[in-house]
């Protein structure tokens, strides 16, 4: 659906990056100044790369060799800019509706205006002009504007950075539904591994204008060393599980995952539906000896130590084979040696239940 391979020079900065994405959410991940916005700008047509090729939905929109450059307004892209770029002379309602004026008639109904307004909590702002909006309000309107333009491709450059967690928690499920319900591919720039893990189907990791890792979320997040690259001890395991049953009274869902049966907070999906779980490595403890009892942790899975990563900053990442899958755990070096962890050792992985699902 999206195929990018370009080269572009900006002063001393040299971008030579590419990736492919076949629907779903592709996370662009990388440190400040690594070239994420530049790459996204090229996809949107705001910038004409020096060379390369960009294909959206099978249609080439840029081809350096063929001198092809489809202008931005014909690419049908919904772009949430890092700097919101609302239209100052239009009120919020008009800003939101702007893209609709230009969407072709046959573009389908797209997402409903009211649903977006409600989800973003901007109903009370509709008559206001952008100048008086708060940082978070501005960002939400920008998201709405892009969503409502019935795009064939969504580009979101740190859309949630200015938002509080409660608001994020309202918007993220919406984006998930968007990802699952429509075929619109999304390129999502974020610094937050939690967001990436939750939303992304693929992750592209950038560094100094180059793509240094690309793959499915599970692959890339579990790859040792991403922690340092992402800048935080937040690597983890991504599991695709199927819903078994709900415990509505306690607000829990039991799922079947490759690593074993897990109890997850929240009631999500009908029985049989597939859900995605992210288990941060730092939320997985290891217990040696018999299965521990009387713990508040709901999920204690038997397994064996598969691999112990290199030590970094006093801690190590341990891969535990559980069921037919793996779990990544991060423990201090001190604990690792105290517990005598070694490949082959039978252990229990203790997963704090509340750490799942996000």
């Amino acid at each position, binding site marked *: 659906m999206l195929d990018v391979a370009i080269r572009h020079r900006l002063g001393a900065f040299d971008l030579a990056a590419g990736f492919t994405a076949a629907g779903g959410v592709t996370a662009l991940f990388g440190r400040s100044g690594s070239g994420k916005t530049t790459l996204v700008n090229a996809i*949107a*047509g*705001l910038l004409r790369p020096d060379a390369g090729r960009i294909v959206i939905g099978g249609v080439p929109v840029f081809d350096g060799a063929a001198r092809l450059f489809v*202008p*931005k*307004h014909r*690419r*049908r*892209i*919904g*772009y949430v*800019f890092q*700097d919101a*770029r*609302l*239209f*100052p*002379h239009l009120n919020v309602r008009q800003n939101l509706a*702007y*893209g609709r*004026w*230009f*969407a072709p008639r046959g573009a389908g109904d797209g997402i409903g205006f009211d649903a977006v307004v409600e989800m973003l909590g901007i109903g009370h702002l509709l008559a*206001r*002009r*952008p*100048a*008086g*909006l708060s940082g978070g309000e501005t960002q939400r309107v920008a998201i709405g*504007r*892009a969503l409502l*333009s019935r795009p064939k491709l969504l580009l979101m450059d740190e859309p949630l950075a200015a938002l509080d967690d409660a608001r994020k928690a309202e918007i993220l499920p919406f984006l998930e539904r968007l990802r699952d319900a429509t075929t619109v591919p999304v390129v999502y720039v974020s610094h937050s591994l939690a967001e990436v893990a939750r939303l992304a189907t693929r992750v592209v990791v950038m560094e100094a204008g180059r793509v240094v890792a690309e793959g499915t979320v599970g692959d890339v997040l579990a790859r040792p060393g991403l922690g340092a690259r992402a800048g935080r001890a937040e690597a983890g395991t991504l599991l695709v599980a199927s819903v078994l049953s709900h415990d509505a009274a306690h607000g829990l869902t039991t799922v079947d995952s490759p690593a074993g049966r897990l109890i997850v907070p929240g009631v999500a999906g009908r029985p049989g539906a597939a859900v995605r779980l992210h288990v941060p490595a730092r939320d997985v403890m290891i217990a040696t000896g018999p299965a521990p009892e009387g713990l508040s942790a709901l999920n204690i899975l038997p397994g064996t130590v598969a691999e112990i990563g290199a030590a970094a900053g006093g801690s190590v990442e341990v891969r535990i084979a559980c069921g037919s899958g793996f779990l990544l755990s991060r423990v201090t070096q001190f604990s690792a040696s105290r517990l005598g962890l070694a490949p082959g050792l039978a252990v229990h992985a203790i997963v704090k239940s509340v750490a799942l699902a996000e």
Partner: protein
Amino acid sequence: MDFLTLTEEERSALLLSLRVSTVATLASLPAGILVAYLLARGRFHGRALLNILVHLPLVLPPVVTGFVLLILFGRRGPIGAFLAEHFGLVFSFRWTGAALAAAVMGFPLMVRAIRLSIEAVDRRIEAAAGTLGASRIAVFLTITLPLILPGILAGAVLGFAKAMGEFGATITFVSNIPGETRTLPAAIYTFTQVPGGDWNAMRLTIISVVVSVAALAISEWLARRVARRIEAG
């Protein structure tokens, strides 16, 4: 007030000036906006030439501009003959000629004001409109144009004021025919040329100033409204 009691002829000069200035301003505004846009954004051959052409009426003594207009747009002039033949549009000795002269003289002022506004528009916002599907023309109409309204107003009021005061090119191009091309400034000029005409010249000058001040006030008021709409939430 005796002072402001106008003779029939003076009233006709005032009305004519109002008509000429209004028509000159409104008719040249679209061209002014277009040229300003081309100068601010265009990358084409002849841009420098266009720029010079637009500034010419400012540089040339008005009498020279009048001569040039006469040569080009007169009955026998290449453009004048063409327009008269194909569109029945005659300038010579008509108020339309006075409007043309006023428009030409005000054009550089109008264009410069609008151009400055266009150059101040944040192009990132235009780019955002582009990603939302707006073509270059649509971006111009829905984003650029509303954002440069203050500049357009400034340009229009400059053009109008200039038209209210312009007389050198006008009288050279279309003479000074009462009721047809004798605008207020032409009437004022006439009074200044005869001994003892000062009093009448002053009266008419004050009237002309009052009209222009009114136009100025309206434009300022509109500009403030526009600015408030953008600034306040």
